[in-house]
């Protein structure tokens, strides 16, 4: 396969865009695509202070790399979850995040959950039995809360995450299977800070395939944590991604089309605000100030025994 841009030897095919690209042009193409998404969905401007949530994985470190190369003011946030799982998972992902920051002269904020709250994520899951003892729902809740808290406390204009198109398509698929109106109404490249205590959030990689981000990290020489989170084994989201990849294999571009058609339909009014009644009833948590649909304390503060 030849590079569509220069005719040299391609190192990657991007079938959903009918492209083959050499290393040099691929490393130009990916940031270009991300820049277009940032502009199209009005995510943020060069004058904004951006906080990138990084996990040590390929997507978030690549996102940090790309935003920095594009000239944005972007610092990192690493949340240590206290997960070992026999592979030293949290320590290794923190090391790789810190290594990336040091190599690029970037600022990384670290929040250590066991140090701040006295318990690791698996310990909180065991104590509360939330998610029937599996730590994934506790992990998601704690990460969302802490990302939001730090973005607000440190005065950032926007929080960005490394969610790629496969992540978004898998969530969309899951929500569509259940016709979860509220979640469908809320899903999108930008979540506005339109409720008390909420930071503005954006997903600049939302149109990039997971495979494309892996290729970017490899070609750019970004060292990332390759081991899967030990608790992610058998996760439904991974199953949905595999299903969607089967579809993509038969119909290149199917995943992209699924997600972009959804965004178009949403813009056209398919998901009315009434589909998300929870959002209309949000109020600030009396303990941490973040928005919640629950009466009284938010889910995170209840989980932590009253205060965050």
């Amino acid at each position: 396969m030849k590079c569509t841009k220069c005719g040299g030897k391609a190192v990657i095919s991007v079938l959903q865009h009918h492209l083959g690209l050499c290393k040099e042009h691929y490393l130009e193409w990916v940031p270009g695509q991300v820049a277009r998404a940032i502009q199209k969905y009005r995510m943020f401007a060069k004058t904004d202070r951006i906080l990138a949530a990084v996990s040590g994985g390929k997507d978030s470190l690549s996102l940090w790399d790309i935003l920095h190369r594009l000239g944005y003011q972007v610092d990192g946030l690493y949340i240590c979850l206290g997960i070992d799982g026999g592979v030293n998972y949290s320590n290794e992902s923190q090391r790789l995040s810190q290594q990336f920051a040091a190599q690029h002269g970037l600022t990384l904020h670290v929040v250590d959950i066991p140090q701040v709250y006295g318990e690791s994520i698996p310990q909180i899951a065991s104590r509360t039995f939330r998610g029937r003892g599996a730590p994934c729902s506790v992990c998601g809740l704690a990460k969302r809360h802490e990302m939001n808290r730090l973005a607000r406390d440190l005065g950032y204009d926007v929080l960005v995450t490394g969610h790629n198109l496969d992540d978004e398509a898998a969530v969309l698929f899951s929500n569509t299977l259940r016709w979860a109106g509220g979640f469908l109404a809320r899903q999108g490249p930008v979540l506005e800070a339109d409720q008390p205590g909420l930071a503005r959030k954006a997903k600049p990689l939302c149109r990039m395939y997971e495979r494309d981000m892996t290729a970017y990290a490899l070609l750019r020489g970004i060292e990332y944590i390759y081991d899967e989170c030990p608790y992610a084994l058998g996760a439904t989201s991974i199953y949905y991604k595999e299903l969607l990849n089967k579809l993509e294999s038969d119909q290149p571009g199917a995943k992209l089309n699924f997600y972009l058609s959804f965004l178009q339909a949403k813009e056209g009014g398919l998901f009315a605000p009434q589909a998300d009644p929870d959002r209309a009833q949000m109020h600030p948590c009396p303990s941490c100030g973040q928005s919640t649909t629950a009466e009284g304390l938010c889910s995170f503060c209840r989980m932590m025994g009253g205060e965050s």
Partner: protein
Amino acid sequence: MTDWQPVKIITRGKEYEVRPGMAVKHALEKINILPESVIVTRNGELITEDELLAPGDVLKLVMVISGG
């Protein structure tokens, strides 16, 4: 006994062997791996699915799916 050296394909904890002469895409089909789920490398370099495999080639597959 075969008179050709097989192509070795290595992925997370598994190793496969296929005949040389076929394209990467067909080699992945033989071992039931979707090209969308992996990046294929040979000698540390990324290669595309139409690349023909030579006797003795060693491919390493980088899995792309993560999450939970």
